[in-house]
């Protein structure tokens, strides 16, 4: 998957990111909460077969930081 395809998949799975682009600051999103973090962890498990922790996701500042957690894109 290309980076733009990864972003599209992430937006499809995590409702809080539905309208986001890579530069979007997560803290500025009204739905960026513990449920959204849970959905990101689940997305990585289903799509990338990769375990990420809640702490790793919470440490991300932008959507680009989340994409950078994918080994092939970092």
């Amino acid at each position, binding site marked *: 998957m290309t980076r733009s395809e990864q972003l599209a998949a992430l937006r499809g799975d995590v*409702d809080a990111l539905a309208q986001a682009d890579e530069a979007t600051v997560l*803290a500025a999103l009204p*739905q960026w*909460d*513990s*449920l959204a*973090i*849970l*959905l990101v*962890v*689940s997305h990585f*498990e*289903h799509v990338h077969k990769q*375990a*990420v*922790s*809640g*702490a790793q*996701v*919470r440490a991300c500042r932008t959507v680009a930081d989340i994409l950078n957690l994918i080994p092939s894109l970092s």
Partner: protein
Amino acid sequence: MHSSLSNLRLAGVAVTTGSVVRDFIADGLAAGADRAALERTAKTIGLRERRVATPGITALDLCADATTRLLNEMGLDATSIDAVIFVTQTPDHAQPNNASLLHGRLGLSKSAPAYDLSMGCSGWVTGLHQAALLCAHGGAARVLLCAGDTLSRLTNPGDRSTDPLFGDAGSATIVEKTGRSSPLHFVLGADGTGAEAIIVKQGGARQPTGTLDEHTDTEGNRTHAGNLVMNGADVFSFTLREVPGAIESVMRHAGYIPATADALVLHQANRFILSTLAKKTGFTEAQTPMSVVEHFGNQSSASIPCALIHCLTERLEAGPLKVVGCGFGVGLSWGAFAGEIGPLTIAPILPLPR
């Protein structure tokens, strides 16, 4: 740790819940939450309502009621019980343990030992393993396993990430020694490096008392040192990391595959987690009871027996079923089991007080 134990059976199960019905959306609106956000959470996680205990009712009361009803249903006298194990993290007192209090309340034989296991959501499986050990190797013919909590007493109503999840319940399970050779298989484990992912910091010997100043997190959730605090994302990561492997391992020992097992009965954490675990382990949603949490909430160690009753009563009464199960949670810890269960005597899920 793997363990396979023979010559025993689950003979009966009962669950008593709290009697106060709490509605997730209504409670959230009363707490000032946004309706759209509540509906989003309700849909994603599978929350609708839960049942909590009235003031003064404890896990001991709930389990005692479940036990009395189960013994009546089975036509058994309490003096026929050779041991009682009580799984809880919300005991009546620091000392004595709940099992001893229940022993006295029910009038059990003085030759019957009574001890607690301090475990949460994985605790019913660990308690079942203990009861099975006592029947298989410990000289007991009939063991009473009680498992339950009143976690709603520990959460902060201002913590919208944790408080709406939990219901209060107590279960009673009777395990008996038999001549049956079909074994029950167990895989038990723990990862104490994750112990702080679910924690109540104050109230034990390390931090017995102190101020209960509330802390507000970045999402506006309020907690203090006496509250149950849970890092949901880390618990979810732990669950995905450890539980599928435990389920696959216990199925290998039992010689089961998902297609030949009748049911996957998991700790009823929430529908989102259960659906994810079913997919990861190759079970269908039809094989995997998931509806307990939307009716009763997350009932800690009582949730697996509640799922057995709520979703499988008719099939278990006719039994046997090839059941695979797993509890997982505080510790962090997990316990998986696999084996034939049934025919089983079941007392229905009822609230206390009635």
